[in-house]
């Protein structure tokens, strides 16, 4: 199962990213678990300064912007 992590303190952009990621995972038809990381120290521990950020299985893929869901689909596909 793939672990999709959304890093962000809960601002609207993070919600948008979470929604896009969920849509992307459904489109790609993969088995996933969506986790929101909101604690600022945990976010920093990922090495992320600019939120929102997207990590897959603990590896940061994107930070500082909200990608479209089709872009996330491509990222997900590169993992299989």
């Amino acid at each position, binding site marked *: 199962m793939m672990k999709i992590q959304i890093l962000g*303190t809960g601002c609207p952009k993070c919600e948008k990213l979470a929604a896009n990621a969920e849509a992307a995972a459904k489109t790609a038809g993969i088995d996933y678990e969506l986790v929101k990381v909101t604690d600022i120290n945990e976010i920093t521990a990922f090495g992320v300064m600019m939120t929102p950020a997207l990590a897959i299985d603990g590896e940061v893929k994107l930070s500082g912007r909200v990608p479209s869901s089709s872009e996330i689909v491509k990222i997900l596909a590169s993992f299989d």
Partner: protein
Amino acid sequence: MKFEWKRPAIILAVFLAAYFLPVGQARFDGAIGEALRLLRGYARQHVLLCLVPAFFIAGAIAVFVGQASVMRYLGARANKVLAYGVASVSGSILAVCSCTVLPLFSGIYRMGAGLGPATAFLYSGPAINVLAIILTATVIGPTLGVARAAGAIVFSIVIGLIMQLVFGKQDREIAPAAVESEAPPAKPLWKNALFLLSMVGFLVAANWSGGAGGLWAAVHSVRWVIAGLCVVATAAMLARWFSRGELLEWCGSTWAFAGQILPLLFAGVLVAGFMLGAPGGEGLIPARWVEQAVGGNSLRANFFAALAGALMYFATLTEVPILQGLLGAGMGKGPALAMLLAGPAISLPNMLVIRSVMGTKKTLVYVVLVVVMATASGTIFGMFFG
């Protein structure tokens, strides 16, 4: 089964509030009218010429200015002197949304240039973001707008240096190195700068007030010509230098800012108008109280304004209508600056987050420093411009 008490409690509270609603009492009805009057004032005077262009500028900054390039100067191996300078001004392009300030602060502290630059950024960020400066200058006046930006930059460096001096020797637990963000779109810096400059030009020209005569009045009489030229220049640059994709991304980000900030701002305007009244009117809180607490330019008034600002939570930009209401009710210019400098930088909720990042002792020192600095700068400003 756990008893669900929250919903009944809320329903009861709403019912009681409605039951005892003081409709018909002069002060309450007056306050509602003031709230609506202030809201109309914003819609008529500040949305089209000030806020809309400001959102486009903020959107352009978010999309076209490479944030990664700024963060390079705040990284672990950054030149320490340069880091303070960059930290104190970078809020203008990094911190348009207040929720981005804290992660950046935590990042600079843990894996970047360290405590001093991090606190400098934390302090100046909310005060010098582009939207805040523009709205402060057009709604409250250019003097306070400039004083707010300049004060935030100068005092952020002072606060950063003091924090570094006091706590610099202590070790911080270093987090793994920052993840490199992907490279920003390759467009030369001067093109972006010119593009932003022409939009800022439109905004300044369109909001130019006649004022003191001489050069000011001369510019005022041709302001629409200047504003028009800026629009033409912006459109020309857009057509020549920017692709369709970039244009869409820019509009998307502008739209996102507007959707995120406008509801908060207008809610803030309503609350400020209700409690404090539009300029020339009185809201729920008697103007006499405001004048007693923060009128004039005494040290006490400045301190009170700074402390109140430090504890209160201001959503992005709502400090502006609240300050406008307070000024209308008799607040002095010095205390106004003190509140502007202490207010958006800290609040009770974000003190808790800051504390989780750097501990109780550092947070306390930081809060005390902010309040003291804001009081001092308010008092000095009030002596010259009050």
